[in-house]
C-alpha cells in the first residue's frame, strides 16, 4: 500500500493561502506527498489548502519548499505557513472532504486560456473530447465569469445546470485526474451545447440546419458575414479581417468611428508579417492570460494582408490568440478545411454599453449588427472584456485589466478595513479591500449608460460574494458629478463615503501596487486627460508630494481654458487654438489647427475664450497632447478617446524608428509663484507652443515635431522633479495617469529620472489610466481611516 515505505518521523501542518482552490492544488499535494513518501492528508478550508504530512525530516522539508515552488499553473500562492504537530504514526496519504466552516479567505482564479493538454485532447480523434467546444481541466477554462459565490463548487457556478455524466463524474472525483474538482468539467454527453442561429428576414433568429455549427460558422465567416460569437466574459463580433467589405460593414453597423478593432489570429505566424513581436510580447500572446497585446505595425507589411478598415491610422494592431476551445475550432484545427485565419474580434456591444452577456438579450440587441450568432447554453454570470496590454521597456503595461487578470488581488503593504472604492467615470473598475488584499473588478466601462450602471451594481455584488468582503466604508472621486460617486452616495446607507481627489488616487495607486506602506512620501507625477481639482478646475498635469494620508500640489501645467468641455475634447483643434490663445500666439491661417477650424466656429471660439464662456481652466496634460497633435496637423477630430495623443505618439515613434534622431526637446517654462509662499510652480507650455508653431510654419515634418515634443516633456518632468527634490528631499517619483500609457513618454521619463538618481515607480499590475483609480481611492480612504 501507499504508506508502506513511509519512515516515521516529523509531522507538520502546512497552510497554503491564495488562489489554491479549483486549480488542482489538492491532487498536486497528493502527488507530491506520495512522491516524497509522506503520510497525512490534504483538505480545503476557508483559509485555503491545509495539509499535514508526516515522514522523514528531509522529505518534510522538501515538501514545504516544493508546495509553493512547483504549484500547478493556475495557483497563486500568497503564503505558506507551517507548524509542528505531534506525529500520529499514520500511513498513507488521503484527500479529505472540504471543510467550509470559518472565514472565507480563498481566492477565485481568473478565466484562463485552454491549456496544452486540453488542446491536445480536442485535436485527438481518439479522445472522447475530440473537438469538444467546452473542454477544460483544473489548469484552464472559465472561472471568474461563471462563479456566483463561494465556496467554489459546481453548485455555485453557472455549470450547476449541467449534471455530470458517469465518466465525467469519475474524472472529477479521481485525485489522480487532471479534472479532479474542475468545476466546469463536461463532455459531449453532458456539457453545454453549441448552437448557430441565423438572422431571418423578420429579424427573429432561426437555428441553422447544419449538423456542425462550427463548420457552418466558418463558412459564413469565409463568405464575409459578421457573427456574434460567445466567449468567456461576453460576446464578440467577428468577421474576416482580410475582407475589406466585411470590416467596413462592421465598422458602419457598430458606429465605431476610427477606433481600431482587435484581431484574433489562428497562430502567431499569421500576424508576424504585420507586426513586430519581441520576446516579452510573444510570452504574453501565448501565455495563459491571453490579453489583446498592442503591437507595432511593420512599416513594410504588405498592404493587402489585412483590411485597412481594421485599424485606420493606428500605429498598433491589437492582437490576441484563441483562448477558448470554441476559438480554436473557429480558427481551424490542424486538418480542417481552410478558413479565415485572422478574425476581427471586437466586443459585442452597442457603442458605449457594456459587453452583452445575456443569451436572450443578445438576440435582440445585436440583431442589427450580425448575420448569425454562434452561442451556447453555459451562462456568463458577470461580463469580462478582453484585457489590453502593451510592452514598455520589456515590461507589461496594462491598458485594460480584465479577463485573465480579474479577480486576482493586489497585495497591500498595510491592512485596510472592509472598503469599497467605486473608481472613476471613464474606464470604470471598482475595488474591494480587506486586510492586505485589494480586489480590482473587471473592466466595467464608461459610466454613461444606464446599462453600465446596472452592470456596475451586479459586478459589485458578485465581487463581494466571491471575496467575502462586506464593505463598511466607501471611497469615491471628489468630482461632484461623477456617476460612480453618485452610486456610492445612493448605496452608502449608514456608511461614510470618503472623497478622494482624482490625481491623489492615481499616485496612491502606483504606491499601493509597488508595496509602499505610506511611511515615506513620494513625488507623484499624475498626467491624464481630466480630473476634478480642489479649486474646481480640471486638473491633469500634476506634481504632488503625496503619501496615502494627503498631498500637496507642488507644481502643475499652467492653466489654459477648456472651451466647451466635451467639444474641446472631441475637437482637438479647439484645444490647439485655446493653447495658442493662452500663450498669446496668433491664429495664423497657415497653421493646420487654424485651417481645421470652420470660420463661423473660429469667431465664436475667439469670443468664447475672451469672455471665459463655458471655459473651465485646465492643467490637463492630455489636452496639451491634443493641442500639439492638431497644431502640427496630425489629428483635428478625436473619434475615439485619446486618438489625437495616440496618433501623435505614433508620429514620433515612426520618426525615431526611421530617422533615429529627435533633435533637441522643446523647452517648457517654469514659473515660480509670485510672492513666493506655498503656491505651486507652474510648468508653462507657452514656449513649446511657440516653438511648435514656428517649426510647423517652417515646414518641419510632423514626426520630428512630435519627437521633439516628447523629449521636451520628458525633460520637463525630469527638471521639475529635480527642483522638487531640492525642496523636499524626496527622491522617489511615482508616474501615473492615462498619459503614461504613452510608451515613448513613460520610457523617456523613467530613463531620465533614473539617470538623475531617482527611484521610479510605475504601474505594473493595474492600468495607469482611470482603470486603476479605484486601487488608489481604496489606499487613500482606508489608510486615512486608520488614524480616525
Amino acid at each position: 500500500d501507499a504508506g508502506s515505505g513511509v519512515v516515521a518521523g516529523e509531522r507538520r501542518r502546512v497552510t497554503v493561502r491564495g488562489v489554491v482552490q479549483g486549480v488542482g492544488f489538492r491532487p498536486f499535494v497528493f502527488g507530491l506527498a506520495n512522491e516524497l513518501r509522506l503520510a497525512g492528508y490534504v483538505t480545503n478550508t476557508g483559509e485555503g489548502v491545509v495539509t499535514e504530512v508526516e515522514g522523514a525530516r528531509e522529505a518534510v522539508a522538501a515538501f514545504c519548499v516544493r508546495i509553493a515552488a512547483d504549484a500547478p499553473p493556475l495557483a497563486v500562492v500568497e503564503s505558506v505557513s507551517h507548524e509542528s504537530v505531534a506525529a500520529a504514526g499514520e500511513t498513507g496519504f488521503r484527500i479529505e472532504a472540504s471543510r467550509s466552516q470559518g472565514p472565507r479567505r480563498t481566492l477565485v482564479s481568473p478565466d484562463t486560456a485552454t491549456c496544452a493538454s486540453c488542446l491536445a485532447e480536442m485535436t485527438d480523434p481518439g479522445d472522447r473530447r475530440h473537438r469538444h467546444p467546452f473542454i477544460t481541466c483544473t489548469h484552464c477554462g472559465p472561472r471568474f465569469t461563471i462563479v456566483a459565490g463561494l465556496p467554489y463548487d459546481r453548485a455555485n457556478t453557472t455549470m450547476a445546470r449541467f449534471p455530470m455524466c458517469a465518466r465525467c463524474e469519475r474524472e472529477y472525483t479521481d485525485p489522480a485526474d487532471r479534472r479532479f474538482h474542475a468545476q466546469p468539467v463536461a463532455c459531449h454527453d453532458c456539457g453545454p451545447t453549441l448552437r448557430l442561429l441565423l438572422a431571418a428576414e423578420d429579424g427573429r433568429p432561426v437555428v441553422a440546419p447544419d449538423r456542425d455549427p462550427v463548420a457552418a460558422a466558418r463558412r459564413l465567416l469565409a463568405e464575409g458575414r459578421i457573427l456574434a460569437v460567445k466567449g468567456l466574459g461576453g460576446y464578440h463580433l467577428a468577421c474576416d479581417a482580410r475582407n475589406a467589405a466585411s470590416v467596413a460593414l462592421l465598422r458602419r453597423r457598430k458606429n465605431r468611428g476610427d477606433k481600431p478593432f482587435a484581431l484574433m489570429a489562428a497562430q502567431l505566424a499569421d500576424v508576424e508579417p504585420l507586426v513586430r513581436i519581441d520576446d516579452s510580447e510573444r510570452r504574453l500572446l501565448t501565455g495563459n492570460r491571453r490579453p489583446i497585446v498592442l503591437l507595432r505595425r511593420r512599416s513594410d507589411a504588405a498592404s493587402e494582408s489585412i483590411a485597412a478598415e481594421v485599424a485606420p491610422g493606428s500605429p498598433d494592431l491589437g492582437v490576441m490568440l484563441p483562448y477558448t476551445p470554441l476559438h480554436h475550432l473557429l480558427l481551424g484545427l490542424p486538418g480542417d478545411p481552410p478558413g479565415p485565419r485572422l478574425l476581427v474580434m471586437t466586443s459585442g456591444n452597442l457603442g458605449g454599453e457594456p459587453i452583452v452577456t445575456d443569451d436572450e438579450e443578445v438576440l435582440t440587441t445585436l440583431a442589427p449588427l450580425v448575420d448569425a450568432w454562434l452561442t451556447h447554453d453555459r451562462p456568463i454570470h458577470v461580463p469580462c472584456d478582453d484585457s489590453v496590454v502593451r510592452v514598455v521597456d520589456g515590461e507589461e503595461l496594462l491598458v485594460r485589466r480584465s479577463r485573465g487578470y480579474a479577480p486576482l488581488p493586489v497585495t497591500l503593504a498595510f491592512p485596510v478595513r472592509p472598503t469599497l472604492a467605486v473608481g472613476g467615470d471613464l474606464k470604470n473598475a471598482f475595488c474591494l479591500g480587506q486586510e492586505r488584499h485589494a480586489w480590482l473588478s473587471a473592466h466595467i466601462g464608461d459610466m454613461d449608460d444606464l446599462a453600465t450602471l446596472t452592470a456596475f451594481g451586479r459586478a459589485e455584488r458578485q465581487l463581494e460574494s466571491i471575496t467575502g468582503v462586506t464593505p463598511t466604508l466607501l471611497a469615491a472621486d471628489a468630482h461632484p458629478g461623477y456617476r460612480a460617486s453618485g452610486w456610492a452616495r445612493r448605496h452608502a446607507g449608514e456608511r461614510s463615503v470618503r472623497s478622494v481627489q482624482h490625481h491623489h488616487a492615481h499616485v496612491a495607486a502606483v504606491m499601493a501596487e509597488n508595496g509602499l506602506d505610506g511611511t515615506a512620501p513620494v513625488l507623484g507625477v499624475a498626467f491624464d486627460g481630466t480630473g476634478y481639482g480642489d479649486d474646481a478646475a480640471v486638473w491633469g498635469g500634476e506634481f504632488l508630494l503625496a503619501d496615502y494620508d494627503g498631498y500637496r500640489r507642488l507644481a502643475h501645467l499652467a492653466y489654459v481654458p477648456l472651451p466647451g468641455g466635451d467639444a474641446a475634447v472631441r475637437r482637438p483643434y479647439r484645444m490647439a487654438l485655446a493653447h495658442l490663445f493662452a500663450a498669446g500666439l496668433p491664429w495664423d491661417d497657415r497653421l493646420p489647427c487654424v485651417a481645421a477650424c470652420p470660420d463661423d466656429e473660429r469667431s465664436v471660439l475667439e469670443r468664447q475664450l475672451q469672455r471665459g464662456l463655458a471655459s473651465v481652466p485646465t492643467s490637463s496634460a492630455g489636452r496639451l497632447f491634443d493641442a500639439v497633435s492638431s497644431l502640427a496637423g496630425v489629428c483635428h477630430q478625436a473619434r475615439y478617446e485619446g486618438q489625437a495623443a495616440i496618433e501623435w505618439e505614433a508620429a514620433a515613434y515612426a520618426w525615431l524608428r526611421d530617422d533615429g534622431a529627435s533633435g533637441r526637446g522643446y523647452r517648457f517654462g517654469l514659473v515660480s509663484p509670485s510672492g513666493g509662499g506655498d503656491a505651486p510652480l507652474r510648468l508653462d507650455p507657452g514656449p513649446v507652443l511657440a516653438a511648435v508653431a514656428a517649426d510647423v510654419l517652417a515646414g518641419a515634418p510632423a514626426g520630428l515635431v512630435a519627437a521633439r515634443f516628447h523629449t521636451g516633456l520628458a525633460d520637463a518632468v525630469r527638471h521639475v522633479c529635480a527642483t522638487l527634490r531640492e525642496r523636499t528631499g524626496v527622491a522617489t517619483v511615482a508616474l501615473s495617469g492615462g498619459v503614461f500609457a504613452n510608451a515613448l513618454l513613460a520610457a523617456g521619463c523613467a530613463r531620465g529620472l533614473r539617470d538623475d538618481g531617482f527611484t521610479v515607480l510605475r504601474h505594473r499590475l493595474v492600468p495607469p489610466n482611470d482603470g486603476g483609480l479605484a486601487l488608489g481611492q481604496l489606499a487613500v480612504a482606508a489608510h486615512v481611516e486608520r488614524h480616525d
Partner: protein
Amino acid sequence: MGHGGGGTLSGELVQHVFAPAFGGEHLAALGDSALLDIGGARLAFSTDSFVVRPLFFPGGSIGDLAVNGTVNDLAMSGARPLYLSCGFILEEGVETATVARVAQALGAAARSAGVEVVTGDTKVVEAGHGDGLYINTAGIGVVPTGVDIRPQRAVPGDVVIVSGPVGVHGVAIMSVREGLEFGVEIQSDCASLGGLVQSMLGACQDLHVLRDPTRGGLAAALNEIAQASSVGVVVQERAVPVPPEVANACAILGLDPWYVANEGKLVAFVPRADADAVLAAMHAHPLGAQAAIVGECTDDHPGMVVARTGLGGTRVVDTPLGEQLPRIC
C-alpha cells in the same frame, strides 16, 4: 458664483441654509410656488428676482421676464395668476429712459398675461453695486378646486410632454451678452404660460406635474421631478424638439441644449389616458403649437433620467452642476 446656476449648488443652499433657517411647513414642500389655504380659497404665492444681463435682448427684456417668471411659477401649480407686486432696485446713474422702457415692457407683459401689478417699491444703490437695475416680483393666483399639481405627483406610466422647442431663451441671452455671432438671430421664447395651462386643465383636470424648465433647462426640470416623485424618466432623445440654430450654437460652444434655460416653455407629466387630449389642447394654443410627447415615467431606476438614443442605448441625463464642468474628457 455657481450658486445662482439652478443646479445642485443653489439646491443645496435652499435645502441646507434657507429652509432650516426659515422653518415652516409650506416652504418645506419646495415647489416653485407655495400653496396656501386662506379663508377657504386655495392661493398660490410665489416670488422671483431678476438680475439678467443685458436688460434688453431679442424677443424680450428684463421687464417681460419679471412678469413671466413669476406668472409661470404660479401657473406651474395650476393656478390662475391674478396679482403681482414689483420691486425695482436701481443702480445710481441708470438712465430714466431705460427704466421707462423696462416699465413699459413690464406693464405690457402683465396685461397680456392677464395679471395686475398692485403694489411696488423702488430702491437706489450706489453706482457699481448693480447691473443697471434688478427687479423682484411676487405674485398671487387662485388654484381651481380639484387641481393638485406638484413635482411629487409623477407616477410610472405618466407621459412626458414639452410645450415646444428647448434651449432658445438661454442661447438668445448668451449670444447678445457675449457678443456671439451665429449667422441668424435667435429670439428668446419668453412668454407667460398661464393661458396654456388653463387650456390644458380644460382637457384634463388631473395633470400630475408641470414645470417651467428655466435655469438648468430641461435636464434640471426632469431630474427634479424624477427625484421628487421617485420615478424613473425615459426620454426619447430624438423626440425632444431643438431648433437647428440652437443646436448649431450649442455644438459650437460645447453646450448641451437640454441644459440651457427656457422662459416660455413647460414640461407636463400627465396620465397616459389623457395624454392625447392634453396634447391636442396644447396644439390648439399658440404657445403649445409645437408641443410633443418626449417620454414617459417608469418604475425602473427611480430618481434617474435616461435618454434613449437613436442607437438603442440609454444615456444617463444628469442633474446639471452650477458650472459647466466636464465630467469626462
